[in-house]
C-alpha cells in the first residue's frame, strides 16, 4: 500500500473566545489519512466541523483559531513549522474547491485570466500558458471559448467546473472540496461528481470531499468519515459503512437520506440538535440524541476503536450486523 499522501492525526481546532464566551472546541481529535487516488468523504450535519477541518489544512481559518495536532503532507509534518507550513501548501500540492462557485470567481476578470493566475509561476511561456488554459477547460468538459467569458456569462454548473479547473491549474496532488456541489441542482451535482471521479482516476488525484449530502458522498468516495460535533465518529470503506453502519449516528444519517434503490415508508429525522461546542462534554457528544444510549455513554467519551467493517468507530455500543436483522 502507498504511504498516505496526507496524514492528519489528532487535529484539534479551538476558537479563542472573543468576549466572555468560553473557548469553543470546533474540531476534536480528528485523524484520517488519504493516499494518492483515494477519495475520502466527510459527512455530517452543518456545524459538525467538516469545513473547519478542510480550512485548517490550508491555514485559512480566522486569526482566533488555534490548531494543534499533526498534519503530514507527503510524509512531512507541515504543522511543525506553524502557520507558514500550512501556507506553503496552498497552491503547492493541495488545492481547494470552495462552497458555492458563484462567489469563487472574480466577477471582473475573464475566466482565462483566472486560470492562468492559478498556474505555477515561472517556466512557462505565454503561448504555453494559453494552451494550458484550453487543456484545463477541456479537462473539465468546457469549450475553449469559455476562457474569454466573464463569470456572469456562465451557468452555475459551468462555474463550478471552472472552479475545479482553477484548482487543477496548480497541478495539485490533493483536492479539497468543501460542499463543492451544494449550490447546484441535482442533475448538475451528479455530473460534477462524475467529473471529480474521472479526474481522480485519470490524474491520480486524491480528494477529500466534505458535504452533508450523504448519497452524493457515498457515490463518489471510496472511504467515508462521519463527523459529529467536531469528531470523526466513524470511518471506513463506503460500502461496508453503508451496509452495516456501526455508529448509531451514521445509521440514522443513512435512514434520513432518501434512496431511489429501496422504498422507505418514512424518512427518519434525528431529533435534537448537536451540543454547543463550548461545552466540555464528559460523555459521548451524541448521547443526548442517541436511541441506543445507556448510562455509561453519559460519563465516558468513547475512544476510536477498530470496527468490524475494517474501519474505525467511536461508540461504546456499536451496532452489530445482527442488530439489523
Amino acid at each position: 500500500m502507498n504511504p498516505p499522501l496526507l496524514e492528519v492525526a489528532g487535529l484539534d481546532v479551538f476558537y479563542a473566545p472573543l468576549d466572555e464566551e468560553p473557548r469553543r472546541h470546533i474540531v476534536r481529535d480528528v485523524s484520517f489519512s488519504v493516499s494518492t487516488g483515494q477519495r475520502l468523504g466527510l459527512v455530517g450535519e452543518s456545524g459538525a466541523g467538516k469545513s473547519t477541518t478542510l480550512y485548517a489544512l490550508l491555514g485559512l481559518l480566522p486569526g482566533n483559531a488555534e490548531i494543534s495536532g499533526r498534519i503530514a503532507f507527503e510524509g512531512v509534518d507541515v504543522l511543525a513549522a506553524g502557520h507558514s507550513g500550512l501556507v506553503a501548501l496552498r497552491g503547492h500540492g493541495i488545492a481547494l474547491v470552495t462552497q458555492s462557485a458563484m462567489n469563487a470567481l472574480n466577477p471582473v476578470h475573464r475566466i482565462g485570466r483566472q486560470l492562468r493566475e492559478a498556474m505555477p509561476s515561472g517556466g512557462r511561456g505565454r503561448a504555453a500558458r494559453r494552451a494550458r488554459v484550453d487543456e484545463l477547460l477541456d479537462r473539465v468538459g468546457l469549450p475553449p471559448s469559455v476562457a474569454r467569458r466573464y463569470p456572469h456569462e456562465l451557468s452555475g454548473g459551468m462555474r463550478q467546473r471552472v472552479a475545479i479547473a482553477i484548482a487543477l491549474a496548480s497541478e495539485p496532488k490533493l483536492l479539497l472540496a468543501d460542499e463543492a456541489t451544494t449550490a447546484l441542482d441535482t442533475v448538475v451535482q451528479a455530473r460534477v461528481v462524475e467529473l471529480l471521479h474521472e479526474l481522480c482516476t485519470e490524474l491520480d488525484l486524491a480528494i477529500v470531499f466534505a458535504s452533508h449530502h450523504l448519497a452524493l458522498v457515498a457515490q463518489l468516495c471510496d472511504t467515508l468519515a462521519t463527523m459529529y460535533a467536531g469528531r470523526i465518529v466513524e470511518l471506513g470503506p463506503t460500502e461496508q459503512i453503508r451496509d452495516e453502519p456501526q455508529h448509531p449516528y451514521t445509521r440514522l444519517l443513512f435512514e434520513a437520506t432518501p434512496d431511489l434503490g429501496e422504498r422507505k415508508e418514512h424518512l427518519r429525522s434525528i431529533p435534537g440538535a448537536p451540543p454547543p461546542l463550548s461545552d466540555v462534554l464528559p460523555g459521548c457528544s451524541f448521547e443526548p440524541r442517541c436511541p441506543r444510549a445507556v448510562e455509561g455513554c453519559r460519563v465516558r467519551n468513547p475512544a476510536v476503536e477498530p470496527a468490524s467493517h475494517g474501519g474505525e468507530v467511536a461508540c461504546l455500543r456499536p451496532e452489530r450486523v445482527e442488530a439489523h436483522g
Partner: protein
Amino acid sequence: MSAIAARARATLRLANRRRATTIGILILSVFAFLAVFGPLIAPYGAHEQVGRPFEPPSSAHPFGLDGGGVDVLSLVILGARVSLLVGIVATAVSIVIGAGVGIVAGYFGGLVDGVLMRITDFFLVVPVLPLMVVVAAVWGPSLFHVMIVIGALLWTPVARVVRAQALAVRERGFVRRARAMGASSGRIMWVHVLPQLRGLILTNTVLMIAQAIMAEAALAFLGLESAQVVSWGTQISHAFSSASMSAGAWWAIVPAGLCIAIVVLACNLVVIDSGEARARRRPLHLSRRRPRVTAQPKALEEQVS
C-alpha cells in the same frame, strides 16, 4: 469595419443615454485642449501689456484687460494649464494615498485597520485650509508644493470609502479561493480587490479634481503660489490685489472664476450618473434592451409534431 461601426453606434447610444456624463466630458475635453495647446491659441502673452489697465471688453479684447494691461482672454486660456495640472497631480497624489490606505486597512482589518483609520481620522479633523496655508508658507510659495500639499490633505474621504468597500470585497468567495491557491496578500489586493473598487475610485478621482482645482485657487488667492505662475487662482488673486473690483473692472475677475466653476460643474456632471446615483435608478439593460420574444415557439412545435 462593421465591428468598428457597431462599436461607434453603441458608444453614441450610450452617450445619448448618459447625457450629463457626455456633456461633462466634452467640457473637460475643451479645457484639456486649452491646457495642452494654450500657448499656441492665446492671442497674447501672459505678461504682455497690450493696452491700458482695466480696459473694458472690446472686439479686440473680448474679456478686456486686467490691472497690468494684460489680455484677460489670453490669461484664462494660459491659466487652464496650471489649474488642470494642479488638479490632476494633486488628485493623483491623494488617490494613491487614499486608495492605498483604504485598501490595506480594509483588507487586513484588525490592528492595521485601526491604526490606519485613526491616522485618517487625524487628517480628517485637521482643518485643511489653515494647514495648507501653514505648510505652503513654511515650504515657500511654489507650484510643486501646492500640488503636494493639496494631494497630501485631500485623501481622507477616499481612504474611508475605499476601506468600506474593501471590507466587503475581502469576504467574497474568490478572495478566499485566491488565498487557498497561494496568492499573496499584495497580489490579492492588486488583482482581486482593487478592480472591484475601480468605479468607486474613478468617481472619487473626478470629484477630487474639482476639489483640487478649487483648493489651488484658494491657495493662490492667499498668495501661497508663486506670483509668476499663471493660473486661474493667481489671476483672481492679482485682480483682487490690484483692486479691480473697486475700479469696476469685473471682467478681470469673472472669467477665471467662471472657468473654475465650469470645470467643477463638468466634473460633477461626469460622475452624476455613476455609482450611488446610478444604483438607485433602473439598470440600463432593463430600461432599453429587452430579450427578443417570438410569438410562436417554432422549434417546440416541430418537436411535438
